[in-house]
């Protein structure tokens, strides 16, 4: 179900038009990095052990094998954060003397084909003096634990602390406190296209790097910095990208090596990551322990919140966000959609001998939302309240709202979306079915999640984290060429989000040219303006805002041109259907004719208008909050612990919706990943730091079979913090689903007196909890 932007007066914005991206993709004419032919192929030799000193690397005779010793001039990746006692750990492009996780690249084999490179890689002999690895963050925090990086004593890479004034007194006044100890296991974003890079040297001395990335411009800057080459000698292209979900936001050491190799070989060289490498060595996420305690007054109003966050950041810190991305976002946004002005938090990033953590759709919010929503349900039980009731008492309803962390929330609809979803879900009917089912030995559950989704982070939001790089703004150039075709060059780098369509819709409304005549160009540092790419539910807000600014300037100029050409007052000019018209007359001139005129007959404008028709816009918003309520319905099989999500209801508010079809698709996809997080997906390390889930049978993204039908309901609270009035919504599905599903599971488990606060809530874990309860029951009877 979708809502259109009623009464906006807009013709294209708000319509579910088909995507302009699709014709090429459905014909198999997409162009992905791995589609490019190369003269040389790379295979990485990766560490088979989690921790150790490299004593020797023996290369097969005659093979081209690059090791750290060959890379003396190349700097290590050393992301920086200027706050939170951050320790600047460095990651060599290839392991230099020490290995810190299974899968770390130690050497790069270069050969004429992928097969041959892999054959040679199998022959490279590694002599590594293995040392005891640290896999779990709590073990890494223990006294006397081995130190993974010399610069980070106790393996703590950063510490965030927050405590509001007067916290202790308010805490002491509580009628009741409730606590949740939550565990989120490790996940992998698992884009269907794993990482890939192709670097080609040309005779001018330049290298063109095609790579599957969400931030092409920053890759160029970072790689040029590390190699010590002029940035102008590097062109980075993100062609079609097969999903990213945050995993392709961070700089990969592998890409740096590819550029270095192309320069060394003066040729083309390619690397296509295989699925096993992706699962063990691309970035991981969500490995956290979160303890939350809520202090409630007698009316079940949350008056103070205390959180302890331990985030396992892996062996290194990711660039550009740093490993602060999870613990610091958790700290900043833990209070979520609830009105609570007293807050104490300790958030630590902990180094371990595991794959490096980086952003994954939702970042910390799937975890903190799951924790906080479990807290709310547990508190509801303690107060003998309905889960909806306790949320009604605590959701923010006055805007703008300033959180205990000082973050300003713009207007949203926390209560309204919850009521909308609750009505659609028909809770009383469900409770009746649930009771009937229990009588038959069947266990159904319903789970609610209400949450805020901060989107469109501008530079100040990143600066608040002390980031050395604050990827907040975007620039867009909108050009009408002399034939009237419109081109928007953007710094964002979409990879499935449909931005070529939605930005065209925004432009179409401003200048009266239909979207199919508007081409959005992105992902090439030679042709797109500098920008930060696509991540953090930002592109439609920030690039969309920049697009609107640029398009409005083009519109203003078109009106001036039309006013000249049609000899009419600017106020009387209307732009629609590819032409300017004088209102109330039949006088008209096409955009193409106006464009031709302003390029080729500039003299006619007597110096009042500059030649050409190209404008740019830059936008750096403060950030805006989307919100939603998710309701999951599950069936739990107590004999096997199996959980089936049978139905899923969402009421979502992301401000003005530009294209409802695309918006729905984002929510659907997010929920699938959230259900994966809740039930299925887990990267498992054994005690020695080896990964037991290195294929897609053991690491389990959901299939069509595991997905319930999803019912979507929309509400539109136009954002005052976003000039298009749109809020981002790329991550909400992922944020809400683990919470809703876990609350539903716990609801289903109520008759057994068992609770589970672990994601994924696997059947093994559910059965273990039930078995414990069965044993306890036997003892007491």
């Amino acid at each position, binding site marked *: 179900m979708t809502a259109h932007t009623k009464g906006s007066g807009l013709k294209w914005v708000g319509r579910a038009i088909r995507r302009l991206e699709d014709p090429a993709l459905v014909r198999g004419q997409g162009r992905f990095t791995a589609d490019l032919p190369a003269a040389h192929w790379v295979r990485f030799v990766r560490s088979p052990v989690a921790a150790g000193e490299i004593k020797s690397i023996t290369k097969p005779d005659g093979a081209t094998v690059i090791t750290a010793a060959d890379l003396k001039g190349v700097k290590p990746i050393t992301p920086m954060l200027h706050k939170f006692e951050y320790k600047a750990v460095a990651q060599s492009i290839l392991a230099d003397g020490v290995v810190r996780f299974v899968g770390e690249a130690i050497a790069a084999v270069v050969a004429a084909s992928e097969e041959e490179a*892999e*054959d040679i890689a199998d022959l490279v002999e590694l002599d590594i003096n293995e040392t005891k690895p640290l896999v779990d963050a709590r073990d890494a925090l223990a006294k006397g634990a081995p130190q993974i990086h010399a610069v980070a004593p106790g393996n703590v890479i950063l510490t965030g602390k927050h405590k509001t004034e007067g916290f202790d007194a308010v805490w002491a006044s509580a009628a009741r406190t409730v606590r949740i100890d939550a565990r989120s296991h490790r996940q992998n974003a698992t884009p269907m296209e794993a990482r890939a890079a192709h670097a080609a040297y040309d005779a001018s001395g330049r290298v063109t790097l095609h790579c599957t990335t969400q931030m092409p411009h920053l890759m160029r800057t970072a790689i040029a910095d590390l190699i010590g080459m002029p940035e102008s000698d590097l062109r980075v292209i993100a062609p079609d990208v097969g999903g990213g979900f945050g995993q392709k936001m961070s700089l990969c050491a592998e890409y740096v090596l590819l550029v270095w190799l192309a320069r060394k070989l003066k040729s083309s060289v390619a690397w296509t990551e295989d699925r*096993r490498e992706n699962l063990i060595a691309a970035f991981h996420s969500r490995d956290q322990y979160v303890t939350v305690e809520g202090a409630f007054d007698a009316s079940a109003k949350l008056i103070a919140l205390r959180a302890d966050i331990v985030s396992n950041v892996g062996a290194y810190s990711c660039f550009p966000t740093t490993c602060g991305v999870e613990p610091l976002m958790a700290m900043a946004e833990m209070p979520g959609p609830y009105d609570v002005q007293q807050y104490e938090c300790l958030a630590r990033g902990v180094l371990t001998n595991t794959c490096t953590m980086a952003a994954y759709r939702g970042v910390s919010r799937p975890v903190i939302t799951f924790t906080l929503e479990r807290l709310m349900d547990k508190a509801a039980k303690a107060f003998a309240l309905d889960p909806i009731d306790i949320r009604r008492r605590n959701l923010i309803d006055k805007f703008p709202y300033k959180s205990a962390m000082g973050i300003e929330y713009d207007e949203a609809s926390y209560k309204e979306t919850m009521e909308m979803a609750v009505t659609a879900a028909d809770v009383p009917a469900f409770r009746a079915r649930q009771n009937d089912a229990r009588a038959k030995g069947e266990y159904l559950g319903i789970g609610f999640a209400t949450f805020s989704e901060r989107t469109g982070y501008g530079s100040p939001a990143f600066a608040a984290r002390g980031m050395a790089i604050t990827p907040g703004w975007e620039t867009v150039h909108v050009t009408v060429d002399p034939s009237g075709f419109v081109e928007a060059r953007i710094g964002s780098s979409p990879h499935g989000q449909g931005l070529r369509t939605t930005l065209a819709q925004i432009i179409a409304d401003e200048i009266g040219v239909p979207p199919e005549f508007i081409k959005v160009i992105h992902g090439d540092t030679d042709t797109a303006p500098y920008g930060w790419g696509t991540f953090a539910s930002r592109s439609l807000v920030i690039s969309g805002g920049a697009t609107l600014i640029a398009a409005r300037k083009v519109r203003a100029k078109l009106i001036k041109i039309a006013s000249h050409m049609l000899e009419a007052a600017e106020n009387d000019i209307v732009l629609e259907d590819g032409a300017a018209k004088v209102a109330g007359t039949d006088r008209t001139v096409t955009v193409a004719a106006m464009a031709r005129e302003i390029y080729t007959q500039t003299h006619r404008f007597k110096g009042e208008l500059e030649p050409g028709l190209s404008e740019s816009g830059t936008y750096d918003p403060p950030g805006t909050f989307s919100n939603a309520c998710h309701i999951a319905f599950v069936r739990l099989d107590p*004999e096997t612990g199996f959980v089936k999500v049978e139905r899923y209801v969402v009421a979502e508010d992301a401000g003005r919706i530009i294209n409802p079809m695309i918006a729905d698709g984002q929510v659907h996809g997010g929920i699938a990943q959230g259900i994966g997080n809740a039930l*299925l997906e887990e990267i498992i390390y054994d005690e020695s730091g080896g990964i037991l889930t290195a294929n897609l049978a053991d690491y389990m993204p959901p299939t*069509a*079979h595991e997905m319930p039908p999803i019912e979507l309901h929309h509400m539109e609270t136009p954002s005052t913090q976003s000039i298009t009035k749109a809020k981002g919504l790329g991550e909400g599905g992922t944020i809400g689903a683990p919470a809703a599903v876990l609350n539903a599971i716990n609801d289903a488990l109520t008759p057994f007196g068992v609770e589970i606060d672990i994601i994924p809530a*696997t059947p*093994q874990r559910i059965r273990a909890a039930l078995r414990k309860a069965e044993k306890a029951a036997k003892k007491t009877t």
Partner: protein
Amino acid sequence: MKPAPFVRHVPRTLDEALAILSQVAGQDGRILAGGQSLVPIMAFRLAKPAHLVDINNIDGLDKISSNGKSLSIGACVRHAAFHKPVVDGPLGKLLTFVARHIAHYPIRVRGTFCGSLAHADPASEWCLTAVTLDATMIAKSTRGTREIKATDYFDGIMSTTLAEDELLAEVRLPMLASDTKFGFNEFNRRAGDFAMASSLVTYRLQGGKIIDAHIGVGGAEPSPRRIPEAEAALNGQTPDDAAFRAAAEAASQAVDPLEDHQTDAAYRRDLVRAVVRRALEYTSR
């Protein structure tokens, strides 16, 4: 993830295949039929056969035939051949029902019945079928033909008593009496995944009492097998909930469960109890 190099042999007759196999068996030669299990492990380089004897071009290996006593399934019969009953009566229906649970459609159109038996994954539906129904494996080599009973065939995880120069040319399943009841159930966390436990059961009724119970369990031990304790619990009973529960409990206690990092013995027993009972419930649907 590219397979290591190998030499591919493409015999046109079974005799030619056996001759090649006898030559290359000692040099890590293997049979390639559907490839749906072998090729993935080659991609991970967990298997690096130096020779593959591709039997897909041999005429006649994709035949299913019945002599009234048993159903003969040739070495290249694909899983998808069973999408519709291949024979009248309960056996045809049973095979169709089981086949639907094997992996996914595109895997089923390539993978073979005998290939599954030769690969001997503990979770394989066809391996479970073979042991539950007391199949006979027909192994051929240049040395001759050998019949192997299901009870003598499996030899632990992904291991069989086939000699390295032997080709599993055929599997014979005894025909089921027309009044045979059957049931199958398996548990996995995601559609099409390997079963974490599975059960196939058959029995007949005589005067309202269960006779000739076969209760097979797969995925729970290194090899699938019939569980005599569960069969004993079922034979002579009326097919009701209590009998099914007792048999399921017996099976759960009788197995020596496989354990892995996620799945402990207690959980595997839970699953065995559930799949056996559900397979039995299916018989009285």
